[in-house]
């Protein structure tokens, strides 16, 4: 489930509010709030769309978890999914490296 918005990185662009398919966030005029955490479906898509790597979705789908923001930042966990799929400028060559065709039919 979505666990945290890093107030230091967030620029209040509200993209996460718009793209979350289950409407978990609310606009505030400033930094959005996680208003309905229980509705989060752990799809990680807000992370992909956040241009600032300011969000962290914990992989635990059924219960909230305590997260340590400083440790997450240090481990570069925030934005890791975005980088892996090539949605940052530095990683865009990864957009076309899907090798599923080598794995199908196993």
């Amino acid at each position: 489930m979505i666990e945290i918005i890093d107030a230091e990185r967030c620029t209040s662009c509200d993209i996460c509010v718009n793209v979350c398919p289950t409407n978990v966030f609310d606009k505030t005029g400033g930094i959005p709030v996680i208003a309905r955490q229980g509705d989060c479906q752990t799809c990680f898509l807000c992370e992909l769309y956040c241009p600032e790597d300011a969000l962290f979705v914990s992989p635990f789908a059924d219960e909230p978890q305590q997260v340590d923001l400083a440790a997450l930042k240090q481990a570069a966990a925030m934005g890791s999914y975005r980088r892996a799929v090539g949605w940052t400028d530095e990683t865009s060559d990864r957009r076309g490296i899907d090798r599923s065709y080598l794995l199908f039919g196993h």
Partner: protein
Amino acid sequence: MTNQSIRAERTFSAAGSVEFDADVLVIGGGPAGTWAAIGAAERGARVVLADKGFCGTSGATAAAGTGVWYVDPDPALREAAMANREKMGGYLQDRRWMARVLDRTYDRSNQLADWGYPYPVDGNGKAQRNSLQGPEYMRLMRKRTKQAGVTILDHSPALELLVDEDGAVAGATGERRQKHDRWTVRAKAVVIATGGCAFLSKTLGSNVLTGDGYLMAAEVGAEFTSMEFSNPYAISTAFGSVTKTLFFGWATFTYEDGSVVPGAASKGGRSAIARALLQGPVYARLDKADGDVQQHMRASQPNFFLPFDRTGIDPFTDRFQVTLRLEGTVRGTGGLRIVNDDCATSVSGLYAAGDAATRELICGGFTGGGSHNAAWAMSSGGWAGQGAADYARQIGPATRRSLSGAGTVALRENANRPFNPADLTRAVRDEVVPYELNYFREAGRLGGSLRRLDALWAEASSADAANASDVLRAREGAAMLATARWMYRSALARQESRGMHRRDDFPDQDDRQRHYITSGGLDEVWTAFRPHAAAAYAEAAE
């Protein structure tokens, strides 16, 4: 290029509501809905697309990504692609539809390449087009939908259909969750592309998929088919949502004590996992993947690794606990019955595409291993959109018809007991999630579930209208309830095991039951048999 002249018109804005006038309304903005909207717009229709979430991130494909049934147009390859699935699907497929879908999927995938989808190229310089990354694909589909001139309403779940004096479908109304008001679209035809129903199991990307389109369609009298093929369960870590099963083909499954679960496998041995889970915890380790395979996996499906990387598990060397999450009709094959090549339903003005529609035509009773659902969504979406646009043109410039809402449960004042969506949802999930009820079916247990589900329906349908803040959840609960009843009534009617439908009391496939099961109804749920075309011909020749 946006063509302003064919945009749907915003006609009315009383306080607390917006109204649009369109030719075609598409409900749902996953692959099926976006292809439908583009297909209708290309035919000159003014189109509105309303999605419960955000068109581009919402639905199963956006979060998960899909293998695609993309097969080069070489007759031998196409023949093999059709033949190798027939047994698995219980011989309920229709060859003509399979061929149509293969053709269409090939064209659409190549269209995606022209639009800039970054398909990989293999070592021989050949583009490989049998897999789509969900976020990438659906971001592109949103862009193309907008460029086609379609008006997109995000965070705007449809709540009920509108019908004209003759009962033809003529639009829908819903709410705008972030604007806290209502929308109405008057349209000449409607495409239901709301996906399947996964009963809030948190299988990846699917909590928006609660069967809403089924309920709305049933309220105008639409029919369903193959609803007994509605019990796929997908493997994930016990704690996580990432139910991508392909890589579990490299797994060894073990009990608590470390001994191997006999017969357990992702493909062809999932029921052994379910039986083991009924006894206690089950673990997996992807220990059959060598170094090369591990690298390909990471490159191909980064989200598969999120639950592992974020908990410090190495899935190739560490043992981790797994579970099976229900996917209902998302990777099942049941859905709205299609009556012609345009994906029309049995109700005038109503079309269906993607998981909202049956996939029996191309996969019979089993979809596992993927690819067919994605191919169906892109093919049926286009057909439904074009069919709806052509139907709308036939109606001509509409004299302003008098429309009424067709919705029932949770929408009408009954001055009775209050509607409690949370309790309803919990009660429905209790009947469909347990493996011993839904994975492994048996007449006595199905009958018991149906009695409880029918009682829930009697209660919900006589309860008062839900209040504004609850109405979406109430309608979702009612839709899941209705879906469960068509599923189990159909499961009871199919007294054999075929495709994914497994009856403990009828463990074998029975040649005499090579037919389809149609279902429908809300207060009274009914089922009926329809012959499978090939079986009917065979009988005629006897």
